[in-house]
């Protein structure tokens, strides 16, 4: 086959197709399209002032679709264009529809979770017993250690060095309880640590442990305090069980929280 002849066939074919799919559209068509679009815009704005409930969004989308069709048909020339171009742009709307419809079949049909009736264990601490918990004891420290391994070691590390695997990506890093208590941002008194356990520490990965009973939180805090190297402590007892000299150590984050948190007061009142 002659090389030049083949080229000529190709050229003629493409010129013919080009003119078929791209005729000279009269200018008036464009102007009329704009007018139609403006009218539809006015309609859609006016409808938005009328409350039609769920139908508002349907009307909005319907008019928008009509406007889009006008833009595509006349401004973008799809009315005169190849089937292929129309098919491709249509396919994108089809793909989108699939995405939205099937996502809706998930997001809009999830069963609402039933409120779970949890049997909340109630705290056994009475007001009279409070001082017993505010002071450390070997039993509390031992219990605290157990609770620590279950609840805290994942981030604070098995020895409380702040090197747990779960905490390695956190910023700031979990507290190393063997460090100087003066550097503990939220304080290292009985009250401060109780507060931190109850409310968490905002801006960090330390969550609230309100789910633990108050006696558990006391046990934990006494264990944690037992790890701190310095002796200046509020609430530590000596061998005879007498309270040591009370010395408030200001936490690095501000004055010590000397008042027990409201929630504990409420818990006590409720109890």
């Amino acid at each position: 086959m002659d090389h030049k002849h083949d080229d000529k066939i190709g050229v003629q074919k493409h010129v013919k197709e080009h003119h078929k799919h791209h005729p000279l559209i009269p200018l008036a068509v464009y102007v009329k399209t704009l007018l139609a679009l403006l009218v539809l815009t006015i309609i859609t704005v006016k409808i938005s002032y009328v409350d039609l409930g769920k139908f508002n969004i349907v009307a909005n989308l319907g008019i928008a679709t009509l406007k889009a069709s006008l833009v595509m048909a006349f401004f973008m020339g799809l009315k005169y264009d190849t089937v292929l171009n129309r098919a491709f742009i249509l396919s994108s709307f089809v793909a989108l529809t699939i995405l939205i419809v099937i996502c809706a079949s998930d997001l809009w049909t999830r069963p609402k979770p039933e409120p779970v009736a949890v049997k909340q264990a109630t705290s056994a601490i009475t007001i009279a017993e409070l001082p017993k918990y505010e002071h450390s004891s070997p039993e509390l420290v031992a219990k605290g250690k157990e609770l620590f391994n279950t609840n805290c070691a994942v981030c604070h590390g098995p020895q409380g060095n702040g090197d747990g695997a779960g905490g390695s990506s956190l910023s700031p890093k979990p507290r190393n309880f063997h460090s100087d208590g003066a550097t503990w941002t939220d304080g290292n008194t009985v009250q401060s640590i109780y507060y931190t356990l109850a409310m968490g520490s905002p801006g960090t990965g330390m969550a609230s442990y309100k789910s633990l009973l108050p006696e558990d939180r006391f046990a934990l805090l006494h264990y944690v305090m037992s790890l701190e190297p310095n002796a200046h402590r509020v609430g530590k007892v000596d061998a005879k069980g007498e309270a040591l000299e009370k010395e408030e150590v200001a936490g690095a984050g501000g004055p010590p929280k000397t008042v027990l948190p409201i929630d504990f007061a409420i818990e006590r009142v409720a109890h």
Partner: protein
Amino acid sequence: MSWLGTLDHKRIGMMYFFTTLFSLCVGGTFALLLRLELMFPGQQFFDANTYNRLFTLHGAVMVFWFIIPAIPGALGNFLLPIMIGAKDVAFPRLNLFSYYLLLLGMSINLYGLLAGQGADTGWTFYTPYSIRTGTAVVSMVMGVFVMGFSSILTGLNFITTVHTLRCPGMSFFRMPLFVWAIYSTAVLQVLATPVIGITMALLAIERYVGIGFFDPKLGGDPVLFQHFFWFYSHPAVYIMILPGMGIISEVIPAMSRKTIFGYRAIAFSSLGLALVSFLVWGHHMFVSGQSPLANFIFSLITMATAVPSAIKMFNWTATLYKGSINLATPMLYALGFLFTFGIGGITGIILGTLSADLHFHDTYFVVAHFHYVMMGGAAIAFFAGIFYWFPKMTGKMYHEGLGKLSFWFFIFGFNVTFMAQFVAGLNGMPRRYHDYDPMYATWNLISTVGSWFIATGILMIIVNVIYSIKFGAKAPSNPWGAKTLEWQTTSPPPLENFDKVPTVTAPPYEYGLRS
């Protein structure tokens, strides 16, 4: 140097070829490290955090640096225009731009890897952890964003090329099946990739601004992230496998000297597979908290994906039947594909069964399944294609003995590595764990030893490629006696691919033996 600004699709294809082989080595190194760690229970070399980063990098590199670009970029670029009798792709400058976008995306990832030790979220970047973790998530996802554009533009280029640059006589049903496969892939690339691109960008914005679309603390929905992620990533696995299937459709008829059985069925099944792939993404999310209705829809439609794949498997097998089989290296890899992809595909249907997946999700059963389809499917087909078209692309013959040896190492190592993982998964071994219960020890040891055979096989392929480019025997135009257009021109082809524009008068697989 002249290559850096080349507009010749063949050179761009070669650049993709070497880049993706490099990517395979990087991803493979991560894999070997993972398997070394898992060789015995307990920590060998890497702590949990490092392990998490390693499997994230292995996945991200293999998916985005290697499998998605490899066959379309390397083989598609080189062969598509020639197979349809064209002089180049429709948009040569866009083609070069696509390649540079791939490099840019890889570099952004590399930055994250070197400066930030990568991410530890898994290649799926699920929220909310990917929002909270301090690791290099933004580098990883923005790299994916850029590489996504590379993929989109390649797809756009290929679709336009097929529609506008076929030579006289090249009707749609005279095109080689590799072209049908690349075309179907291109449709997926254009339609699906933007979704993951923008989702990755949204994740990056989320980390900086806290927009909350995917963050439950702010009223968002982490499962919505998964929907957007998998809306692309499921079609993506078909972006990975369809070109591979196209390669098999070329190698088997040529090396059985027999017309392909069911040409139209294979052509339509490529399109059909691409279309149905848009409807099944939620089968990756059966235990994510999707509603029961969505779970049901996805499981049901997933069953349908078996049909087009099965059509191809039957047709390839029927083509082999009573053919004059040439067991050269490409054919060995193609036969290997039939075995391993068969297993991969069937285990996919097992996983698509909702009730079964509830137990198998996030176990090594899933890991084995996707390695069987991705590595035992796409990668093995890629290797078949490398050897089949090596003479055409380089003008040299590869070393046949080393080629065959590489196949046996690969197929043996692959099945050992991943069959052991099926067993571990069936017994409940979870994935993405840096350690495991000692009851899985035997299977992990076997799997690790298998991985060394895979590595050896792949190393042999690379050595073969490099050695043969330099020292291989000069290749004739048509060493396989094949019928498609690329074999009717020189090895390698001239600049405009043909001395004169061909005119096609017959379908592509007219061998002596009919199917």
